[in-house]
Structures are given as C-alpha cells and as structure tokens.
C-alpha cells in the first residue's frame, strides 16, 4: 500500500510539470489553430538555458527561472514572426512541415553546440527529501511541482482576470468576431506564442532542477505534451492540467505494475481509449 501511495505521489509531482508544459502548447493551439510539433524541443532549449545559467553564471535554477521564462517567451515571438506567420497563408500541411523542420533544426543545433553529453545541474537550493506519513518526497521534485502549480495559477489568472487574457480567449473563440471588436488578432497570435513558450520555459526551468539535460530530452516530453493536450481537449487549459496529472499518475503506476519499459505505452493506450469514447478529449468542446 505504501508503495502505491509513493508511486501516485511521484506521478502527481511529474504530472504537474507535464500539465504546465502542455498548457503552453494548448494555448497556442486554441488561439490560432496551430500545433507546434517543435514543442518538446522548446522544452529542451529551456532546460539548456537553465543549465548554462547555473554552469556559467552560477545562478540557482530557481533564481534563473524568470530569466528562462522571459528568454523562451522571446524565442516564441521570434519563431512566430520568422516561421509561423509566413506559413499561415499555406495549408495545415505546410504548418506541420514547418514546425517539424524547426524541431529537427533545434535538436541539431543543440547537438552541434552542446554535444550529445548528458548534463545535470549539481548543487541546488533544493536538495534532500522529506516524509509525509509513509510517503517520501524528494525536495527538488516537490519544489518543481509547486512551482508548476504557481505558474499555472498565474496563467489562469492572466487568461481569466485580465483584459489581455479576455482578448486572447476571444481570439480563440471566434477570430473574426474578435477582430470586429477591435482586437488586433495578429498581436494576440504573437502574445499566445510568447505566453505559450514562456509556460514551456517555466516547465523546463523547473524540470532542470532534477532531470538530466540532453539534446533529445524533448522527444518523450514533447510527445507526452501532445497526448496531454489531446486527452484534455485541444485549447482547454483546464483540460491540459487535469490530463497532465492523470498521465503523470498513470505512467508511474504503470511503471510499478508492468515492465517499466511499458510505462509510457500504458499512458498512450489510455489516451487512445479516451479518444474513442470522447473524440474531443476530456474537457474539449465538441
């Protein structure tokens, strides 16, 4: 029983970070109908940013977090202006092609500049572990999950409580109606990329506290983010949060019950089963 509680707890901790990264992906999708297939590679870049802030500047990953968020947000805008805006006039296929190419490019650049070596951030403020009843939680994992929860809360507040957030949601709801109301939807697109990529940056900076960093690290996390988003329902930030925690728990429990090699497979199967029953995802609009 203890091991089950332990497994569920670590699943929730990972799930919260997954949820945050998926929220960034789903925001961009909801606002402008584009799936960023380079999403995992954005995460990888953010983790490297965090690593070099620590290795070169000696910054603790928690202190570097705002900088990493800002850097990724800026990167998101650059990608929007340089790659996404030109392909908006093309077909969906061109958009898919462009973001897949971008992912290959980013991974190649990372391998070229940083080499394929695994890197790990060493002594951070968050080390050690603590016990809640029978469950032992790693402090780095817990702090990262709490951080993800806080950033997700900020994202909700931004979308729900501010004028800009309302304009973003209006653009997602009905682009032409939003334009008629005087909303500059092009600026909203850029903003969605800034906020979406910023969320990925936050997830990356938090994950980097304890997770090894290498050029392909985005592959698995990127795929999990797609699954999380589709499971929660595209464009639904709340759905992404729910699905993120669910997938975190399912992967860890599956790793306990089955061969750990199959832990993601079980999450993928869950996703397929849910889609067959509810094609629009858990909280998506039909």
């Amino acid at each position, binding site marked *: 029983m203890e091991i089950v509680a332990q497994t569920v707890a670590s699943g929730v901790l990972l799930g919260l970070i997954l949820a945050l990264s998926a929220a960034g992906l789903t925001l961009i999708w909801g606002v402008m109908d584009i799936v960023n297939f380079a999403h995992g590679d954005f995460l990888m870049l953010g983790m490297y940013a965090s690593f070099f802030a620590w290795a070169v500047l000696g910054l603790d990953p928690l202190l570097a977090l705002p900088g990493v968020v800002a850097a990724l947000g800026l990167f998101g805008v650059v990608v929007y202006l340089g790659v996404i805006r030109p392909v908006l006039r093309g077909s969906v296929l*061109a958009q898919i*092609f*462009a973001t897949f190419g971008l992912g290959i490019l*980013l991974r*190649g650049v990372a391998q*070229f500049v940083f080499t394929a070596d695994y890197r790990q951030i060493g002594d951070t403020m968050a080390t050690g572990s603590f016990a809640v009843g029978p469950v032992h939680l790693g402090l780095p994992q817990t702090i990262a999950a709490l951080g993800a929860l806080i950033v997700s809360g900020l994202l909700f507040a931004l979308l729900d409580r501010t004028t800009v957030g309302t304009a973003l949601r209006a653009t997602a709801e009905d682009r032409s109606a939003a334009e008629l109301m005087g909303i500059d939807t092009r600026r909203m697109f850029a903003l969605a990329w800034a906020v979406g990529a910023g969320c990925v940056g936050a997830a990356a900076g938090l994950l980097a506290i304890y997770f090894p960093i290498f050029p392909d690290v985005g592959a698995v996390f990127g795929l999990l983010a797609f699954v999380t988003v589709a499971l929660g329902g595209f464009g639904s930030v709340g759905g992404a949060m729910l699905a993120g925690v669910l997938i975190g728990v399912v992967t860890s429990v599956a790793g306990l019950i089955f061969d750990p*090699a199959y832990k993601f497979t079980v999450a993928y199967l869950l996703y*397929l089963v849910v889609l*067959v029953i509810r094609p629009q995802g858990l909280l998506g609009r039909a």
Partner: protein
Amino acid sequence: MPRPGLPVIALVAAALVYPLVFGSPAAINVGVLILLFAALGTAWNLLGGYAGQISFGHAVFFGIGAYTSTVLLKEAGLSPWLGMLAGAALAALAAVLLGVPTFRLAGHYFAIATIVIGEIAHTVVRNLDAIGGARGLFLPILPTSLVNYQFHNSRLPYYGIAFGLYALALAATLMVERRRIGYYLRAIREDPTASRSVGVSVLQYKLAAAALSAALTAICGTFYAQYVLFIDSDSVFPLSLSILIALTAILGGAGRAYGPLLGAGVLVPLSEITRIAFGGTGRGADLVIYGALIVLISVAQPGGIAALGDALRRRLPQPA
C-alpha cells in the same frame, strides 16, 4: 487502356538513364533510396493526400512488412516474395482495425493518435524477445538470385526492384485518381459532411484508402529488410521514419500523383549529402542543415515544390 502520358515516359527514361550516368555504388544507393521513399510517399499520399487523413504512423506498416517477411523467412524458410504478400495483407488488416476507431477523430487529434500508435508499436516490438527484441534480426544470407530476393554483387537489381515498387504505387494512385473512389476521397477530404449527405460512405472509402496505402508501405518494408539484411525496431518502426514518409509527400505537394517523387528527389539527396558531408562530425551538423532547409522551404513555398511549378506555369505565357 489510355496511352501512357508524357510524365510516365519521362519517368521511365530518367530511371533508365540514372544508373548509366551515376554508376558508383553510392550513387545507386541514393537512387534506390529516392525510389523507395518516392514509393513510400506515394503510398502515404493515398491516405494523407487524397483522403486528407494525415498519418504520422506509417512506420507501423513499414515495420509490419519488414518483420513479417523476415520472421517467415527465418522461422519457416518462406520466400520473401510470399512473405511480402503476407506482410501486405497483415498491414492492410492492421490499417482497417486501427482506422475504424481513429477515422472518427478530427484533424490534429487523428495525427497525434497515429504518432501514439506508432510509438506503442515501436515499444512493443523493441521488447518482444520472440522476434529479436532490442537486438533486432539478421536475415540469413542466401545465394544471389531473384527468387531469394538477395543480390550481393551489384546494387542494380535492387534499383530495378525499387523502381518496380514506385511504379506499383504510382499505378495504384493513377487508378484511384481516375476511378470513382478517387473523386469520393477528394470529396471526403474537402467536405466530409457534404459527402455523407449525398450518400458517400465516408468510413468505407477511407478504410479502402488506408488498406491500400498500408499494403504498399508494407511491401516497401520487405524490400528494406532484403536490401539492408538487418532490421530492428529502431530502423523500421521509429517516429522519425513515419515523419520522413509524410514529409516526402507533403514537400512534393500532397494529393498530387507525382508529388512524392519530387519530394523524395529533394529530401533523400539532401539528407544523404548533408549526412556524408557533415555527419562525420558526429555532432548533428547534418540535422542543422536538413532542418533549416525544411523550415526555409515551408516558409518560402507553403504549397510544396509542386505548387512552385504551378506558380511558374502561371507566370509563363500560355500557349494559345
């Protein structure tokens, strides 16, 4: 029978001339890969281009083809040609079984479901020790002969077979284009609701396209196994292969019969040249150039290379 058009004649001529001009084994290898990926892209195009179902999981069918013929050859001594047919049948069956639940999914949901199915298959095969698991399978080396589907002295026979694969996929596409199913598929892609309302059985036609596409892809998988003589889950089931197949068709212009050949003609030499010229660094410089070119092409020409041809044609004065 309609007379073969100009593109077909030009194609056959180019395929015949290529090995005469570029005779080195490396160049023949590039030719084989161009034709193989042209065949794969053409097969993908039946489902992705004509029926509008964007699959990022076609490596599943490729892997089914490669593993079916290889396991039957190793375990039962069955000729790879018969194994190829078994693999094609199995892949078509898999496509129908996977298509029934997933074709209800819209747009990106479908694309992501195909990625997920591919990753599940990849993981299962890697961990299935009965068929080699992570170590993969070496094919038994047999004497050079067409019956054995193995040629050790020259790559030219493989080049010929690869051309045959492409011709088969192209012939299937041209037949689909001219028959009722081709019109139905395009109608379904443009507006599924309207198609259904005029009585087109949407699911049935999509399943037919998927089965044909999967069978052709599996045949290419058997070819790959016989060409390389070693298969493992990472070479025939990976997501990167699924993506390459889709990109070949998309780059050439999805939904155009000759598009995938154009796409393969650009992508394969590009990746081979960058790999040979820059891959030796072991640092992924080839990926940088490859990725950058994909982004550049899609930004400069969102409709694919074939659309570039259309744009040029529009600009030229039309013959009266």
